[in-house]
């Protein structure tokens, strides 16, 4: 279910996933942490180029499927998009 919810303070929330998610088998605590700096900072991005934040939401959803994660909710701020994921 992918739908934008304007009513909450979230930019996006998946109520159906939220209601049905079952963590019973999520036995492993330690996380895998991947951090990729494409450029040193936002000022180093090529002039007139789009940025990571211009990649459409549905593309992030598809990328995260490869990781076996679904998007529970997302909040956008002026400088960052923060996704809360299943698992």
């Amino acid at each position, binding site marked *: 279910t992918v739908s934008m919810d304007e009513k909450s*303070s979230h930019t996006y929330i998946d109520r159906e996933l939220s209601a049905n998610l079952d963590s019973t088998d*999520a036995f492993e605590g330690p*996380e895998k942490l991947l951090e990729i700096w494409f450029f*040193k900072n936002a000022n180093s991005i090529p002039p007139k180029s789009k940025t*990571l*934040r211009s990649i459409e939401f549905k593309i992030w959803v598809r990328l995260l499927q490869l990781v076996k*994660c679904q998007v*529970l909710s997302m909040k956008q701020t002026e400088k*960052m998009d923060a996704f809360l994921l299943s698992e």
Partner: protein
Amino acid sequence: SSLFVFDHKLTLKTCGTTTTLFCLEELFRTVRDHLGWNFCLQGKINPYKVFYSRRCFMFPKKQQGIHQNWDDETHYLDQFFSKGKSYLVGRLGQTSHWNLYVTETNKELEAQYGGTNEEEDDETLEILMTGLGPAKAAQFVTTREPGQPVESDGEDEGHDLGFRVTQQTQLDQVYENVKNVSFQQDAFAFTPCGYSSNLVLDHEYFYTLHVTPEVGWSYASFESNVPVRDMSCGTQDNVNVMERVLGVFQPSDFCLTFFSRDFANDNFDKLGKHTQNLSNYIRRDKIVYDLDDYQLLYLRFERK
């Protein structure tokens, strides 16, 4: 699990049996096709910097594919990146040791587009805790059942409970927001148990928590890129942040890692010096790594 996307970088932190590295090929194809960012050089990909790390797993055989084994993960990463180095952080044989893969900084990219040469500090504090205090772990167990019907205008119970857990545990008060900057939180209480939250300060700094409270393998992680000194106008340091986080979880063991780009970062010294005599914990290991243009502090503690 959490994903943070900035204009120029992303951080993906995933729990359980996720397959984090399997997004790499599609991710670099996406940035090439959608943004025109092509980092290919002689068959390898060479972005500014890549970090991949994880603590050793509690149940490695339940992981999927390459994630069962650090050597396989490293081999996989080496297929993408040409200048990667792999490190074991901590003591070999300890179940709490940590693995890190980091690529050499692509400094040519830095100069290519005339970005600022100003050296900004970048710091990341991570605290990985096991053996949570039973009463503390119980705060992250819920009684609701999965599969309740979804009401179109109804409350989202998982987020609502997550919000309340954040408040009750005071995880929203880890940092002194003396500058009174914007503060946003997004938390979720899993059912029957577990908790994840993203907390964002000043639109660009985050801390994130993930908790699996099950007895026998309870675990909590805290990761932050918040510049504590700046945010608190000098009233707080990372030793204080660590103490607040430990107070929420009261773990039997924990390890702390602190990355800093600035070699003069005062939290690096404070964490190294002022954690020697914590009231409830004995420091078992302190190791400093010099990683290209970053320094890494690793500390491991056990409850007295």
